[in-house]
């Protein structure tokens, strides 16, 4: 079984039914209840979290691990209860991305990651005090030293 939907960015898109992710609470401030992940930039790590119901509703996401090696998600007890996802469960994590023309200005939101588990997705607040709302995704090699010093 497959699902076909319209996208203002990509035209008609077809995905397998099992690739549709239910977001019971939607995304904060955006809503939407059924999304899928589209790999339109293979090899870059960037995916589109795309609504299968609203043609205009889509946002870029990345898995945090390749970009932020020390990323960790601390879920508050109320979020564990709300999502039913226990610590240590087999989940896929993504963070939303603000795309900009200059890659060095692209930031990811580590404060409110997306947790996907068994076909369901939740945007949760990361209680990790180090999680930035706008964490730069890329830095230049020589800048790394400069920033760290």
């Amino acid at each position, binding site marked *: 079984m497959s699902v076909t939907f319209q996208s203002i960015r990509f035209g008609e898109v077809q995905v397998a039914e099992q690739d549709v992710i239910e977001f019971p609470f939607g995304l904060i401030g955006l809503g939407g209840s059924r999304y899928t992940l589209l790999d339109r930039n293979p090899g870059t790590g960037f995916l589109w979290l795309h609504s299968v119901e609203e043609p205009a509703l889509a946002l870029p996401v990345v898995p945090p691990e390749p970009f932020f090696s020390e990323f960790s998600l601390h879920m508050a007890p109320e979020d564990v209860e709300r999502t039913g996802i226990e610590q240590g469960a087999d989940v896929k994590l993504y963070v939303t991305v603000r*795309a900009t023309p200059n890659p060095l200005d692209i930031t990811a939101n580590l404060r409110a990651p997306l*947790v996907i588990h068994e076909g369901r997705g939740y945007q949760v607040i990361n209680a990790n005090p180090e999680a930035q*709302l706008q964490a730069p995704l890329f*830095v230049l090699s020589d800048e790394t030293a400069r920033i760290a010093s």
Partner: protein
Amino acid sequence: MLILARRPGERVVIGEDILVTVMEVSASTVRLGIEAPRGVSIFREEIWLAVREENRAAAEAQADALPSAPIDEVRGEPAATAGEVSSKDETGPQPEASPQPREAPQGGSSSQD
């Protein structure tokens, strides 16, 4: 706006199944306990506003807005880890509206991956 005076230990009932308890009052802080069904999301307002702004900004991206080349060709090194680049807290101080969320559930704070 409905304005109610409550003492510590007293509650407000919203609808059939939302209970707000005044846990503690000090000089400038009120601690609230909120009991609500699973389907009701509860956020500190400033965090909710900030995340909504990030989500909306992200959703404005055009189809060609993302790097088309593999990561290794775009970047030199991975970005600094969370918290190292800026210590500025975008969400401002957190009101003590609920117990401090620093402890992860089940008594440990490890990553979920």
